[in-house]
């Protein structure tokens, strides 16, 4: 099996378990500029994920 396919379950778990679930109350933005604005407004740091969608 291709190494990337073999790793997909682990990657998916990592991506999903990151407090990405709505049930966890985490809201993921999809626009970088919006994230900068929110970070400025709230004083929070940014957790930026680059994900390559196949």
């Amino acid at each position, binding site marked *: 099996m291709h190494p990337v396919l073999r790793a997909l379950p682990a990657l998916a778990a990592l991506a999903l378990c990151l407090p990405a679930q709505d049930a966890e109350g985490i809201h993921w*933005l999809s626009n970088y500029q919006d994230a900068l604005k929110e970070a400025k407004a709230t004083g929070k740091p940014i*957790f930026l994920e680059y994900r*390559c*969608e196949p």
Partner: protein
Amino acid sequence: MSQYVCVRIIRMDDVDIAHFEYDRNNPLYFFLMNADEQIYTRYGGRDSAAVDSYLNLDSLELALKKGLELHDQWKQGKLKAAPRPAPKFPREYPLLVERTFAKNQCVECHLIGDFQNIHRQLDGTLDKKKHLWRSPDFKLIGITLDVPKGLVVKEATGPAAEAGMLPGDTIRAWNGATVWTFGDAQYAYDMLDRNARQVKVRVERAGAEKELTIALPIRWWLTDVRWRQSSVDPRVYFDDRPLTDDEKRQHGLPPEGFASMVRRVADMAKLMKTHELAVGDIIVAVNGVDRDPDVHTAELYIRLRKNPGDTLELDVLRNGQRLKLPLRTLQMSFRK
């Protein structure tokens, strides 16, 4: 996580790829930063074995905590900003634009890396050791990390042990760059000049810091990159191994040459009629060249020094006879 603004980007179209530079063959990569776009730390990185060798929820938690600490320091004015490179965007690469934007297709991460290399090849600035052989492997210099604990050393052997690294050490700086995560450390390692023969590493041990100098073997940067989609990597469709000194002597070959024995021939070679090498063949020279300071096999010589589409002449020993065999290298094509 609620202490962070979380943002997920799946299209690279408008990303400043100079500022957010990383090995684009990572399907997931993270930056912890502030609203001034100052990067605190990276989380990600990989080896050739698997995309997730160094991804772990425990180490991610450590990274998130460190990000919050650094953010507090920044708010107090105690964190010095690193210089930022001049911006660069995917639209500045004409061939990438032709391939993606012009066709209304997604700019995928690995395409950015590939087209950067294609443009470097056209500009004459491609350095394959640096641009193709990315993400050097710490294990090649004897460092095995305790992955859930981030940069804690689990085992130190070879060059790392010889430099004095011990299990339990925590890596704090690599080649002068402060590192908090594996992502930071691998990126700092990736930025090292490929001709470097040593690297300075700072470790924390029992509450004190210690600087080590690790001697780097000649091909410290060499990893298996055949899993990468790369247009500048000529496909050769065979594997080989270097001859031992005894074998070279036995065949009357120079000890400093890259003579190597074919150990596998890919089916594609027959299908695409690229060469007629057989397992057991000894490749002595490529286009009359039998040695190169950076390489130890004919395969590596071709991949490092030749281009996709080149037709080469190999000097081959087969069953005691010397032959000249042609080999045509191919360029990998992408699925879309």
